[in-house]
Every structure is written in structure tokens, then in C-alpha cells.
């Protein structure tokens, strides 16, 4: 027999679950299923032979091999460069390390299209590193992936490293272990979960990178994600796209699962109650890691600096002409709007998407972290949690295209509705929001809530006085993340944006896909504007200092 207050609680949980579940069903499962059905059963019945034929195409295998190769190489390089940098920026007493941390994190918040533009301007024949001849090669793609993902490794490993209890290392040293032996036998095993967890996240981001590969690889170097885009938009080969989307889905789910297992190990690892070790004084023996960090810093700063400088150079002179061109795009180029109108559009959409992602993310986080009393309850929560990570596993392109083909008839004829873009972007931002909020909610000692309840506080008052005070900083951080993600979102938006009302990333892509100095110059200026916007948002987030923000 269930006591009445538990019945009320369960009804409340069900009501809370309904909103996000309905959203997920209509705006994620339906479009993705629609896309898969079109691909696997083009004539209404299942065509597995056709699907198999797609899989064995030479181009398909090439694309899959290229995606795997580039992702793995990018991940290995990112970890190799990120771990020493994490050590220097989180364990050594390096002057200005807070600024360096902010610099390293910057690329992660940048729209992928902008990162693509940066590397093109850096590696193009006329660029500072043009002599390397890397423009248009697969190495450019790998470098850009490393640039983009360094933040993940440095932050995840660095914050974990800083929180490790130094007494274990001290004990090993006191037992006679050399610094090298301490590192190999104590520090590295302790760090392993954090390194592997960050690696899994990086691999995921590398494998699903879209805007970056599209801008740098073009048609020559295609990953699964860009291939889906090309197949749907250029060749109208829905079957091919659906098969690739399915392949990607399986691979990414496997990756997410591995990442989740590793993330749990990071969260479960013992942390020092005293807040980790003090930072060490820089010594001569640190020269190797310091050199690596200097190289990484240069590597991160160079593309950013090049982008800014080149956006201000026109015909060998310093000039604002590229920025002025943003206001007259419609006259100068084939773009049907001005850069400022596109920025305004991006911002308005991002605000809507962020609100949506926050409301849904809060519902999901509260439900996922609630205290499950029964085994069934725990399983339900686990499934619920995983379901809202799914959008990470499905390419934004698939979602965007799925919207077009499934939400185009009554009762849900939204194709021309301006609400579609914020919805698609909210879907992309939702997993990030949940990942920021969940650790914060889990971090609250349940006995705080119990203490409040025994003092007579109702469940609502407990939430307001115990949960909310611990949640507002993560909520701000999630807001920043969602804004940055929405502002830079390109995969889904490229399908959904109306030609006369594009977002800024779409405008940038349109500009770089067309020849001409005016287009190229305006693309540089638009990229700077977009990068500055997201960086300002992220800097504000950094200001509120929310710790490690889960694993991101």
C-alpha cells in the first residue's frame, strides 16, 4: 500500500517528465524516425539490400575510414598536448595562468564555422602559415579538431588533477619513490579515468564535427556528418544519408556509453576534502611541460590572431572595409540580408532556444537526480537520463533534415514556422544543459533536504531553499553554454533557416562558399563578430566560476 504523500510525489514526477518526453518524442524521435524510414524503406517496404549496397560503396567506406582516422588522430593529439598543458595550468604556479586557461577554453565556445574560417585564413596560400601547403589537406582538418577540443582535455583533466589528494603522492615519495615513479605509479593511474573520459568526449566531438569539416574539407575530404549533408542537399540520396546516419548513431551511442562509464568513475573518484594540493613553484625540471604549454598557447592564439588581423586588412592596408561590408551584404554579394540583421536573428533565436533548453533541462535534471526508492525507479531514471543524451548521438544534420520531411503536414505543419530553428538548437543544447545541472544537483547532500524537511519545510520550500541556492550558478553557466551553442549552431540551422532570414553562421558559410575577395573579407569580419559574441557570453560564464562544469 502506498501512502498518499508518495502517490502525490509520483504524480508530480510524472507531470514533470511529461513535458520533456513529449518534446523529445515530437522533435527528435519523430524526425529521426522519419528520416530513417525514408532511407531504409523508400517505397513503403523495408529495403535492406539497398541499404547494404550503400554500405559497400567505395565512397561510403572511404568516408567511414576517413572519419575514424581523423577522429582518432585528432583525439590522440589533443590528449597528448592537453595533459601537459593541464598540469602546467592547474598544478604549477605559472604567472597569468588564469588568463591562459581562459585563452585555451576560448576555441571550444567558438562556432565550428568560425574555427573553419580561422584555419583557412591561417593556412591559405597568402596566410602566415601558407608556406606549409596544408590548405585544403586532411591535416588542416586534424589541426582544427585539436584546436577546438583542447579545452575539453585541459579543463577536465586539469580540474581533476587540482582536486587529487596530494597525500597519496606524498606517501609514495616518503616511501622512497622518485618523482618519475610517483607520476607513473600513483598520479597517472589516478588521472586515468579523467583522461579517458575527456578522450571519449573529444572523440565524440571529432566524429560529429560538421561546420568545421565542411569549411575545411569541402568535397574532397568528407566525414560521415558532412557526407550526410552532401547526400541530402546535393544528391538527394536519402537512402545513402539514412544508412550513414544509422551507422553514425550506433557508433556514437557506443561512444556515449563508454564516456558515461568513464565519467561515473571520475565522479566517484575520491577527492581531497581540503581542495587538492597547493600549486607548485616552477622549477628548471619543468622545462619540457612548459615548452609544450608554450607551443599549445601559440597554437591556440595563432589562428585567433590571424583571423582578427586578416579581417582588418584589405588590399595590403588596415581598414574597416570588411566590417562595413557586413552592413551592405545584399548589395555586394549573393547573401539576402546584412550581417547585422543575421547577428540579430542569431541572437533572437539563441535566446528562445536557451529558454527552451533551460526549462527542459531543469525538468530532466531534477527528475534524474531525484531519490529513487525502488530498483524500478532507478532503472526508469537511468533510461530517462540516457534518452536525453540521444541528441548528442544523432547528427544535427539528420535532425534538421528530419524536421523538414516530417513536420511538414498537419497536424504539425511547422516547416515555415520560425519556431523550428530554436527548437532544433534547443535539442542540440539540451544534453549540455543537463550535464551541467546534474552534477550540481547531485552535489547537494541529501541530508540538507532532509534537515529542511524535518524542520517543517514542504517539498516546494525545500527545493526553493536548498536546491535553488546551489543551482543558480550552474543555471547561469548552462545559460551561457546554451547561448554559445545556439549562436554557433550550423548543422540543423543550415536546413531550417529561411533564405531571407539566415543566422550568422549560415551567412558565413554562404560567403566562404562563393568566390571573390569581398565575400572572403566579409566572411572574416562576420566570423570575428560571431566569435566575439560567443566569447563575451562565455567570459561572463567563466566569471561566475562554476567549478569543472561536469566533464565539459
Amino acid at each position: 500500500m502506498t501512502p498518499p504523500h508518495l502517490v502525490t510525489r509520483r504524480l508530480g514526477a510524472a507531470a514533470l517528465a511529461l513535458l520533456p518526453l513529449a518534446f523529445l518524442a515530437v522533435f527528435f524521435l519523430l524526425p529521426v524516425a522519419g528520416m530513417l524510414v525514408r532511407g531504409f524503406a523508400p517505397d513503403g517496404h523495408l529495403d535492406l539490400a539497398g541499404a547494404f549496397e550503400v554500405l559497400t560503396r567505395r565512397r561510403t567506406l572511404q568516408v567511414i575510414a576517413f572519419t575514424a582516422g581523423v577522429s582518432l588522430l585528432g583525439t590522440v593529439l589533443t590528449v597528448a598536448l592537453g595533459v601537459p598543458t593541464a598540469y602546467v595550468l592547474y598544478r604549477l604556479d605559472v604567472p597569468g595562468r588564469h588568463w591562459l586557461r581562459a585563452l585555451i577554453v576560448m576555441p571550444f565556445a567558438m562556432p565550428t564555422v568560425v574555427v573553419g574560417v580561422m584555419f583557412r585564413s591561417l593556412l591559405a596560400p597568402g596566410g602566415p602559415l601558407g608556406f606549409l601547403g596544408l590548405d585544403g589537406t586532411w591535416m588542416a582538418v586534424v589541426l582544427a579538431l585539436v584546436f577546438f577540443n583542447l579545452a575539453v582535455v585541459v579543463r577536465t583533466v586539469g580540474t581533476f588533477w587540482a582536486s587529487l589528494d596530494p597525500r597519496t603522492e606524498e606517501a609514495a615519495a616518503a616511501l622512497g619513490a622518485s618523482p618519475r615513479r610517483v607520476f607513473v605509479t600513483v598520479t597517472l593511474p589516478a588521472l586515468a579515468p579523467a583522461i579517458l573520459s575527456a578522450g571519449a568526449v573529444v572523440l565524440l566531438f571529432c566524429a560529429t564535427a560538421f561546420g568545421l569539416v565542411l569549411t575545411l574539407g569541402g568535397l574532397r575530404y568528407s566525414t560521415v556528418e558532412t557526407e550526410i549533408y552532401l547526400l541530402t542537399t546535393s544528391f538527394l540520396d536519402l537512402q545513402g544519408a539514412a544508412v550513414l546516419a544509422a551507422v553514425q548513431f550506433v557508433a556514437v551511442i557506443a561512444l556515449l556509453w563508454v564516456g558515461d562509464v568513464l565519467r561515473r568513475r571520475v565522479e566517484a573518484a575520491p577527492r581531497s576534502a581540503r581542495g587538492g594540493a597547493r600549486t607548485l613553484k616552477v622549477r628548471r625540471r619543468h622545462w619540457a611541460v612548459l615548452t609544450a604549454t608554450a607551443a599549445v598557447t601559440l597554437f591556440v592564439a595563432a589562428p585567433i590572431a590571424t583571423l582578427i588581423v586578416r579581417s582588418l586588412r584589405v588590399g595590403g592596408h588596415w581598414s574597416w572595409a570588411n566590417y562595413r561590408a557586413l552592413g551592405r551584404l545584399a548589395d555586394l554579394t549573393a547573401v539576402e540580408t546584412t550581417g547585422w540583421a543575421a547577428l540579430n536573428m542569431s541572437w533572437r533565436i539563441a535566446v528562445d532556444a536557451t529558454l527552451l533548453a533551460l526549462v527542459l533541462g531543469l525538468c530532466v535534471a531534477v527528475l534524474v537526480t531525484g531519490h529513487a526508492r525502488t530498483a524500478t525507479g532507478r532503472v526508469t531514471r537511468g533510461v530517462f537520463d540516457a534518452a536525453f543524451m540521444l541528441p548528442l548521438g544523432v547528427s544535427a544534420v539528420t535532425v534538421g533534415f528530419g524536421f523538414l520531411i516530417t513536420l511538414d503536414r498537419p497536424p504539425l505543419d511547422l516547416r515555415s514556422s520560425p519556431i523550428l530553428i530554436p527548437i532544433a538548437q534547443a535539442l542540440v543544447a539540451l544534453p549540455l544543459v543537463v550535464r551541467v545541472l546534474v552534477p550540481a544537483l547531485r552535489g547537494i547532500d541529501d541530508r540538507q533536504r532532509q534537515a529542511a524537511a524535518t524542520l517543517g519545510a514542504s517539498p516546494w520550500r525545500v527545493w526553493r531553499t536548498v536546491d535553488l541556492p546551489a543551482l543558480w550558478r550552474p543555471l547561469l553557466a548552462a545559460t551561457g553554454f546554451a547561448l554559445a551553442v545556439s549562436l554557433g549552431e550550423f548543422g540543423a540551422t543550415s536546413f531550417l533557416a529561411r533564405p531571407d532570414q539566415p543566422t550568422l553562421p549560415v551567412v558565413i558559410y554562404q560567403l566562404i562558399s562563393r568566390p571573390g575577395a569581398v565575400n572572403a573579407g566579409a566572411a572574416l569580419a562576420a566570423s570575428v563578430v560571431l566569435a566575439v559574441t560567443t566569447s563575451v557570453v562565455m567570459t561572463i560564464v567563466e566569471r561566475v566560476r562554476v567549478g569543472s562544469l561536469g566533464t565539459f
Partner: protein
Amino acid sequence: MNGGNVGRNRSAENHNGDIVVGTMDGVSGQRGLDVRGANVRFGSKRAVADVDLTLAPGGVLAVLGPSGCGKSTLLRAIAGLEELDSGTIAFDGVDLAGVPTHRRGFAMMFQEGQLFGHTDVAGNVAYGLSRPRSAAAQAEVSRLLELVGLAGYERRRPATLSGGEQQRVALARSLAATPRLLLLDEPLSALDRTMRERLATDLRRLLVETGTTALLVTHDHDEAFTVADRMAVMRAGRVVQEGPTVQVWSHPADVWVARFLGVENVLPRERAQALLRGVDHGDRVLDGMDRLEGTHPRGGIHGANLGVRRSSVKVTPDGPLRGRALSLVMGRDGLRVDVDLPGTGRVAALADPTARVRVGQEVGLWVDPSGLMLLPDVRDFTAA
């Protein structure tokens, strides 16, 4: 007024201003807390097994047991934080099944205080008051802080307080809610010894002064003896002994309870005999052991043992018993001497700190007859 407890005086309108009238309805006529046949299972493990407990208004009951015995689970079940699998928990005759935690009027104090870090001391203490921001509430906060010895701490942040101060604030916060029953979950265990002993005395005084009915869960028997006037000893989910603290102290129910309460000498009959020869009326005690043996209330064969605390076995030069000192350790209570007594074996005894005893030396022992206790073997509950 209720005569259920010794020397207690508690007005009947102490909680939330509701005046409790003498007529009772519901599952029992019991005033105060009444736990009957309570069971909590975690999977196949019975964390709380068939527990019966009563606590009259104004009383302070300590539930004492080693870690993992189920005492905290019992406390959480009373608070409504854990569901009972069977049995009832009632207060003032009203069954609490289905009453959520926040409507029970039982404030709970945790081991680490669990103060709300986002607000100051005053905000914490006022949390359970009906209108936390009112002037009356602020006055009440000041009064309570003064009561717990922290006058003027209103604007301090919890993080800036020492462990002992945090617990004092937590106590003030709990008292502010004028709970019908105060639940204390190992409230002093996280503190160092000096602080723990001082706070235990203060806690006792405050509970008596405010006439608060309280249930204290602890693994520390000193703490239980200081704070409570009744005691329930728990082992493996069951209450194995319940009674006034003095009685539990002097007459543990069996060998296990005695050892848990710090009785160091537990001697079976054949070893006890030699020791009893040196005690006044020792043969009468031996007769008592013979009578106890084999008269287990639940039947079956069991042994009788003699228990005596170290503090009741004194090393004196002219003691009637002679033995050899095996080891010496300086303790808070004096010089702890383990003595090998012929026919008995190792006996824990206490010497004056200034006594000149050396290992291997022959010493005399004197046993205080009032410190002797008869202890049956541990009862086999699985057979019950």
C-alpha cells in the same frame, strides 16, 4: 504533565502551540512516541527487525549500538525518511504512516550539522520558525543563540564556524522549530573528544531546560549516558536491551551488551570461581551464576558469566587476591594494569597513577563487590 519520567516537567503545549488534551484515539493510548513491530528491509537484509520502542513526553532516549546495527535507519524511519516494511510508528496515539516528514514536527539534527551554507547563522536558526523575517523571529533567534552559548553569532556564515559551533547552531535551529520530538543522529561524533564531552553536557542541560522530548542515536556509550535518561541497545537490527541508563549501565542484558558498554572482564564460570574467592560473599555470587545457568527464558543451554569493569578491580598492595602484572598502560582513569590471576587468567585492573608497579611483579587485587554483574551468554535470536 506526565509522570512517565523521573524529575521531568514539560508543559503539554510545547510543540507548535497545540495544546494536547488527554483524550487519545488512534492505534494506541500511548502519549509520545510509540514504535511497534517496526521492520525495514534493504533487499534481503533486515536493517530494523521487530523493534518496539516507547518514549514518553519530556524523556530523552538514547539508541545505542555499533555502526551498521540499524539505529540510524530506525531514526530515519521515525523521521519519515525511510518507509517501514511492516509495523507502526505513532505519536500521541496517531499513526504516522502516510504523514510526510515535514508534517511530523520532528526536527532532526545530523552528524555534520547540515547547516545551509547560503545563508547566515540567523537564517539557519530561523528556518523552522513560522515567519522567519519577523522581529519576533529575530528575537527568538537571539534567545536561542544565547541559550546554546553563541550570542552575537547571527551574521556569521556557517563555513566560518568550528565543528562544535556548527553543531550548536544546528541544535538552536532544531529547537527553534519547537519539535514534538527532536531526533539526534550521532550529533557529537564528528567532534574531537574535549569538544564532544563539553557539548554532551550542554546538550543534556538544554534538553532538560527546554523540556524537549528527544531520541539520540549514537555508538558512543559515554555520550548516551551523559545525554539520555533511558537507553535502548541495538544489535543487528534488534533492540536487545531497553531501560533507564543507570540500570543498563549496572546490569547489561548479556555478554555482548556488557562488552559493548566497555566491561572488560567477562569471565565464564570456571574462570570466575578463583576470582570470586577473594570477594566478600563471593560464594553467593557463584550460587547466583549456578541459578542463572540453564534457566534461559527462551530455553536451551547457555552459560553464565561474571562481568566486572576494570574500574571495579583495584590494584592495592594488601589486596586479598595475588597475581602477576602482565602489562601497564597509562590511561585517563589511571594506570591500567593487566594481571595474570592464578585460576582465572588475564584480568583487567586499575591502579593509582602514582602506584609503583612493574611488569612481572606480584600485585594484590581488590574487587568491589557492587561492581559485579551476572551475564548470560548472547541469546540466539535466530532460534527465536
